[in-house]
Each structure stands twice: as C-alpha cells, then as structure tokens.
C-alpha cells in the first residue's frame, strides 16, 4: 500500500477524486434536507428558515398512516422472511447432492437478479389468479417473497463456515435434534440471521416497483406515495419527509454496522455475498 503513495501529489489527486465522488453522491440528499427548511415553498431561492413543512408532515394523518403501513409491512415481512430464509438455508445446507444444492441456489437467486418490474408484474398475475385482494396482504406477501432469498444468501455462508464436528459432538453428548438446532446451530449463525433481517428490512423499506404493481387502490406505502406526489411536482413537505427518512436510514445503517462488527465481518462483503 505504501508503495502506491510514492508521491504526496498523487495521493492528493486521488483524495480529490474520492471527495468529488462523495460530494456528488451526497449533494442531492443534503440539497433535499436544506430546502426542507425553506419558507419559500420551492426547491430554489432559499428565502428563510421554517419548520412549517415538518409541521405539515406531522399534521398529515393520511401520510402518517402510510408511514405506519410501511413500517408494519417492513417489520412483519422481514421477520417472516427471516424465518423462512433460515429454514431455506438449513434446507440447502442439508441437501447432500451437489446438483440439487446448486439447483436450489439458482432458484433462490432468481428473485435477486430479476428486475423489479418483472417481479411486480408476475406477482400481480399470481395474486389476481389466486384471488388475493390487492392491498395489505398482497404487499406483505410480495415483500416476504423477495426478501427470503436475501436472508438465505446472508445465512448460508455462516452455516457453511460452521464445522460439522460441533453438531456431531452435540449429538454424541446426547442433544436432541431440536437442541442441536436451538443451542448449537442458531446461536452460531446468529450474526448471519441479524444481517439477513436487516437486509430484508432495508429491501422492504426501499422497495418501490414491486409494491407499485401489487398495491391496490386505497393502500399505499411511502415509496408509492412519494412517487405519486412527486409526479404532481415539487412540494417541500416531501423534502421534510425525506429528511426524516434519511435520519431514520442512518440510524438503521449504524445499527446494521454494529451488528456486523459484532459478527466481525466487513459490511462490503456482507452486501456482496
């Protein structure tokens, strides 16, 4: 690493580039935040400081119900998909034949790589055929469905990392199958489970396209609501709302980061694998 920093000048230029990338990445977010305090009512010409837009957000019961919907969907779907995903990872791990394992993994990854539009459209067909009314249930099912493979991907490496001798030892010492699962396997893969839960949570909170397809009239999540409002033009209450969401996201990310730290794994590899 040191050899790359032979000249301080080169080091400086690289810093300039990185900082430029950061500025561009963060500028829109800070821009939104800044104008959420603008009394002028538009995203240009900052006139004066005001908290009116925040007041407007908190006075908007419809919006607050939508925020509540979004949180309920996110928490429920990530909890349920974590359970399903852990079972899935265990299932994949327990399949002995390599081919079956690969097939399961490939099927698992289909929803991860599929474009949202296709997931949304195909789920729309599915729910219509099965006769599930579009609304809370369809959105919840869709969110569970697309979060399960992420949890599997997060949990599986932990399971594979675990030495099978632990299980053998537990069995030899007379542990029942349930004991092995709850006292040996689950505690060991807990960081993976937490990471999976958090990823599922962020995916659910972040999703727009799939929800857009499977939500009916009268039920909406935050992303869908912001989309329909943004299509009507700029309203600074959206800015205020996004500032609040931004803060919330930072808190979530910090939480995720600390859970990762406890699991002793860098965040980059988490998201990747």
């Amino acid at each position: 690493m040191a050899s790359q920093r032979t000249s301080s000048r080169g080091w400086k230029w690289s810093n300039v580039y990185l900082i430029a990338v950061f500025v561009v990445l963060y500028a829109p977010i800070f821009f939104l935040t800044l104008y959420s305090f603008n009394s002028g009512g538009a995203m240009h010409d900052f006139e004066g400081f005001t908290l009116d837009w925040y007041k407007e957000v908190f006075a908007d019961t419809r919006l607050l119900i939508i925020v509540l919907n979004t949180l309920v969907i996110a928490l429920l779907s990530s909890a349920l998909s974590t359970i399903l995903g852990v079972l899935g990872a265990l299932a994949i791990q327990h399949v002995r034949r390599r081919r079956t394992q690969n097939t399961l993994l490939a099927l698992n990854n289909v929803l991860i790589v599929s474009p949202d539009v296709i997931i949304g459209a195909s789920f729309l067909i599915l729910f219509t055929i099965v006769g599930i009314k579009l609304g809370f249930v369809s959105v919840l099912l869709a969110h569970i469905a697309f979060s399960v493979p992420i949890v599997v991907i997060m949990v599986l490496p932990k399971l594979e990392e675990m030495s099978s001798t632990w299980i053998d030892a537990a069995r030899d010492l007379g542990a029942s199958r349930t004991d092995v699962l709850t006292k040996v396997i689950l505690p060991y893969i807990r960081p993976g489970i937490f990471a999976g839960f958090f990823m599922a949570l962020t995916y659910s909170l972040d999703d727009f396209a799939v929800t857009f397809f499977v939500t009916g009239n009268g039920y909406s999540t935050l992303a869908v609501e912001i989309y329909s409002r943004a299509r009507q033009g700029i309203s600074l209450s959206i800015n205020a709302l996004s500032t609040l969401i931004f803060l919330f996201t930072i808190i979530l990310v910090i939480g995720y980061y600390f859970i990762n730290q406890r699991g002793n794994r860098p965040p980059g590899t988490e998201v990747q694998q």
Partner: protein
Amino acid sequence: MSVKSRNLYLIPYAAWIILFVVAPIALIVYYSLFDIEGKFTFSNYSSFFTPVYMRMTLSSFWYAFLITVFSLLIAYPAAYLLTRTKHKQLWLLLIILPSWINLLLKAYAFLGLFGTYGIVNAALETFGIGRQQILFTDFSFVFVSVYIFIPFMILPVFNALEKMNPSLIDAARDLGASPWTTFRRVVFPLTINGVKAGCQAVFIPALSLFMITRLIAGNRVITLGTAIEQHFLVTQDWGMGATIAVFLVVIMALIMVLTGNRPKREVSR
C-alpha cells in the same frame, strides 16, 4: 442428520420456491400467449418484432449500455482509491450509505436540482451559459441513473480489488511495467470478475427502469421496463406486457450466461 429432519426444513422453502419463483415465471410465459380479449394467440410475439418494439428494445439497450459504461468509468477508479485509503471500511460504508436511501427520494432531489430554476441552471447562468432544459432530457436520465447505480458498481469492484494480492502490483512495477501497463495487464484482468458482477448489477436493472424514466426523463425515454408497466397498469394489456417480460427474462439469462459465473447480489431495484 437423518433424512426426516432434512425434509422438514425443505417443506416451507420448497413451497416458497414453487409459489413465488416457479409459478410467477410460468404465469408470465402463459399470459404472453393470450391477447387482450383472452384468446390464445402468438400475436403478442409477432407484434414484439415490429419496428415499434424493436426500436424500443434497442434504445433500452443503448441507454442501459451507456449507464453501465459511465458507472464503470466512475466507479472503478473510486473503488481502486478506496482500497488505498486508511479507514477503507468506513469509507466504503459511506459510499454505500446513499444506496440505502429510497431511490425515489434521490430521483425527486434531481427534480429540484435540474429544474428550470434549480441550482444547476443557476450555476450555468452565472457562468454565462444561460438556462438550459436539463430535466426531461436523455442527459438527465443517464446522469441520474448513473448516480443511483454507482454504489452497486463500486461494491463488487472493491471486493475484487481487495482480494487481489497487492504484491503482484509491486512485482509488476519492479519488473519495469508502467502504471498503465500494470493496470491493463495485471490489475484489470485480476478484477474482471468484480467488473462483470458490477455490470450485471447495473445493466439488468437499467434495462427495466421505469420510475426514473417517468420522473426524470418525462416519458421521453421508453425502456422495456416502462413498456411493461404501461401494459400492465395503464392499458391493461397483460398479454403484451408479459411478452415483453419474457423477452427481458431471456435477455437477462443470456447476460448471466455470457458474463459467466453465478449471479451476484445486486442491491438495486
């Protein structure tokens, strides 16, 4: 473990696979064979090969290609420099952080930034260039898309660079290779898998963007994703929408096979 316990784990998971992976794909293919009146037909496929849809497919590909290339051009140096920083995990986290923010909000921010009276136009005016129409152009579409996808390109490239043995660079330099040769002959080939994963993670979602095209490109850019959304939610012609979706799935599978190795996680939607 015994056969019995193995099967127990598999039941809910297999049910999930059948219900939400296999069934939706089968349904998409099935619906593509029916026209808007519900009659069995191949007409959707024949109309897909008319100039209207072909032009749309081509332009969709062209935009996705542009978005991928620009993301790579910006992301690769950034990822490389990231691996050289002191607190790289922290920097990486900071790079990923914006990608955790709902992309709708980011697109919305650009409505303000690029608007007629927005900051960018104000800056252009001070420099004497004058106000330009930025919003609802191809440029704004590509720019915002690249902005949104950059973290997803940086991540796999960063991981690939991290896996690379740094002494290889020193070896190349010691043997007299110029920095450019070192990059072209050593670093880049060794990180090609990260680049591939990044391109997958950007190209496929870029093909099917529909929200950004609506908000930022003002319906000027029609991608395959926009067309699917239009058919499913506006014109209610599910057959045609499903046909386009089938093509998108086929294209996607082709890209996966061409870029090799198993699919990597893409974080975008």
